[in-house]
């Protein structure tokens, strides 16, 4: 990778360049301070804080029902899974068992969210490496999922469909049919994704052998989700600590050992297939029953510390609540997957070109509000 001329009389200097906060490849307001030697990246320093809204502090003010809707605004592409994480923590603390129906619906919508998030990622991934058409194909399929969400939950992005103790309301009568239609539609489209982009020689050259992350590094940097699994680190929370109805379904953890950008890409494509498999197992037999268990209007958690982790589209999201027995948490901490995944950007991007940095960053699938909170 080191292509600088060693014994040259020409004096060359490294220089700094500000990538972001307004830059098309940082997908939001991430600022990267790059140290560059020509085109080669010497150092990447992420600078955060441009979309910090102090969500964790706001949580200390809010009741447990209100906390849920704040998590929508963290990783807005997996908002349902974030909501579920908070609800699961509160339910575990209160030791309530939610009805089976709730568990199954949560899992289905969670997996749909994952597909929607990966669809968007795929489109944007293509756009970052310069194939602008993928963006529209990805969004076309994501719109179908958003329609399902809008019909059932009332919103497309920040759904807030969960409550501690269940769901806000029952699924819409059209939900099952629409989901099945989507799965049938998406199966053909996902193969098309492969023909259009995955096989493309330029794309493969851009992705293979770029941004290599070893398994050891993945573990020590705390990588999770597709980033960790692309490096062969088996870390699917859905497999190891199944929550909701995930213990009732069979699916394969998508795992690649190469650790390069292409491995991370393949893991996400594979995850979409697996998510569809999970939905197919559950969609036909959503158990009858209540969509809510009765909880007090004012939820007071017992004194203590509670932790629950879930697998969002980006990786492991942990919710850690310290309660003093009042109706608000004493301290609430989110372990967001994006933050850990961003921390290894410097490690894997150094030595590459600017184009590599953009491609690598796209495979990390960063959502900046999730990192900044």
């Amino acid at each position, binding site marked *: 990778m080191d292509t600088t001329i060693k014994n040259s009389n020409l004096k060359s200097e490294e220089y700094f*360049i500000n990538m972001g906060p307004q830059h098309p490849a940082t997908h939001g307001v991430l600022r990267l301070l790059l140290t560059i030697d020509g*085109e080669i990246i010497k150092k990447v320093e992420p600078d955060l804080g441009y979309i910090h809204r102090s969500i964790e502090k706001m949580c200390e003010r809010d009741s447990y029902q209100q906390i849920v809707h704040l998590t929508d605004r963290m990783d807005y592409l997996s908002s349902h899974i974030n909501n579920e994480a908070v609800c699961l923590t509160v339910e575990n603390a209160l030791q309530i068992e939610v009805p089976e129906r709730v568990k199954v619906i949560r899992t289905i919508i969670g997996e749909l969210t994952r597909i929607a998030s990966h669809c968007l990622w795929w489109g944007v991934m293509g756009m*970052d490496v310069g*194939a602008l058409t993928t963006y529209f194909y990805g969004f076309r399929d994501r719109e179908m999922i958003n329609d399902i969400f809008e019909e059932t939950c009332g919103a497309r992005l920040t759904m807030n469909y969960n409550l501690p103790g269940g769901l806000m309301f029952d699924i819409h009568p059209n939900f099952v049919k629409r989901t099945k239609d989507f799965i049938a539609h998406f199966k053909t489209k996902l193969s098309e994704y492969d023909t259009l982009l995955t096989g*493309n020689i330029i794309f493969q050259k851009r992705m293979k052998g770029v941004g290599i992350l070893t398994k050891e590094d993945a573990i020590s940097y705390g990588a999770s989700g597709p980033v960790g699994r692309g490096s062969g680190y088996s870390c699917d929370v859905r497999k190891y600590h199944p929550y909701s109805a995930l213990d009732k379904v069979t699916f394969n953890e998508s795992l690649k050992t190469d650790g390069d950008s292409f491995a991370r890409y393949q893991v996400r494509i594979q995850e979409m297939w697996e998510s569809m498999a999970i939905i197919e197992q559950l969609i036909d037999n959503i158990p009858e029953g209540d969509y809510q268990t009765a909880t007090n209007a004012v939820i007071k958690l017992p004194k203590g510390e509670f932790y629950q982790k879930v697998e969002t589209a980006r990786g492991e999201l942990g919710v850690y609540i310290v309660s003093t027995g009042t109706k608000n948490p004493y301290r609430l901490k989110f372990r967001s997957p994006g933050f850990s995944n961003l921390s290894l950007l410097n490690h894997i991007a150094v030595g590459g070109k600017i184009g590599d940095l953009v491609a690598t960053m796209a495979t990390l699938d960063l959502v900046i509000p999730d990192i900044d909170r």
Partner: protein
Amino acid sequence: MNISLNITKTFTELLSGFLPESTANIGAMVIIALIYLAIFSVAGLFLVLIERKVAAWFQLRLGPNRVGPWGLLQTMADALKLVSKELTGTVKADKFLYNLAPYFVIVSSLMALSVFPFTQNFQAFDINIGLFFLIAISSIGVIGILLGGWASNNKFALIGAMRSGVQTISYEISVGLSLLTMVLITGSLQLSEIVEVQKNGWLIVQGHIPAIFAFMIYMIAGTAETNRAPFDMVEAESELGAGFHTEYSGMKFAYFFLAEFINMFIIAAIAATVFFGGWLSPFGITDSIPWLGVFWFLAKTMTLVFLMMWFRWTFPRLRVDQLLTLEWKYLLPLNLLNIILMALIVWLNLTIQF
């Protein structure tokens, strides 16, 4: 009045009726320059519109459809907007070079247009080194890009400009060599002569296998030459924002933008002239009506322009080192082999002629 298609001659004769000869010559030049300028500013806008429409159809969108019928006036409206916009710039920019750069780009692309035979004799400037002139002129445009990137005092623009330099210098070779392959058959650099030779069959048929290789190499290198995706290293919006024209606004930006599209037209027009017989109709079906040559020339050119748009809206962008690998390790050696093959074919009289 019977107007000859040879416009230079026509105008000179018309003017020399009441003007001294030297003045008439200059007058004819100015008139023709103005005609070309007018036609190609409109053609550039039209190409932008086509690009946007084609992109939309590739991407399941509708494209511009608000201004005028089917959005036909959209780019006109855009141009009006750009004319009325403020020309901004950075504080420490080299003002002279910064302002000069867009003219380099637009002038070089307009100059290149003058040598194309649109139909029989319909050519502003029929010189005997036509093809050489085209290649020479098209590499002047990169000076504008380099100047613009350097002078605008922006690091992103600078990186874009440097990439552009690297890219154009490399791919010039392939463009030149692939056209040289075809010159082996024609034996002339004059564009009207090249078209004349193709009356016995288009060169892509005459030269068969090496001609097809040369055409593929030419299209790849030509796309790179115009800085379009998948070789849009220079702009690379997801990497450099807008690349070399980051700091340009208003009409100066529009010059760069327009030049990109006219360059695309030029590259396609060269390919149409050299490989596909220029204004010649297929099997000579309309040879008796020379005016229709314009139609055939434009039809061929637009087909190739469409091909370049298809590339752009399908492929990811190459990385800058891969771009050079492609040129120096694949296109250039293949090109040299191809020339030898073509030379053998011409020498052994294996060309297909009707």
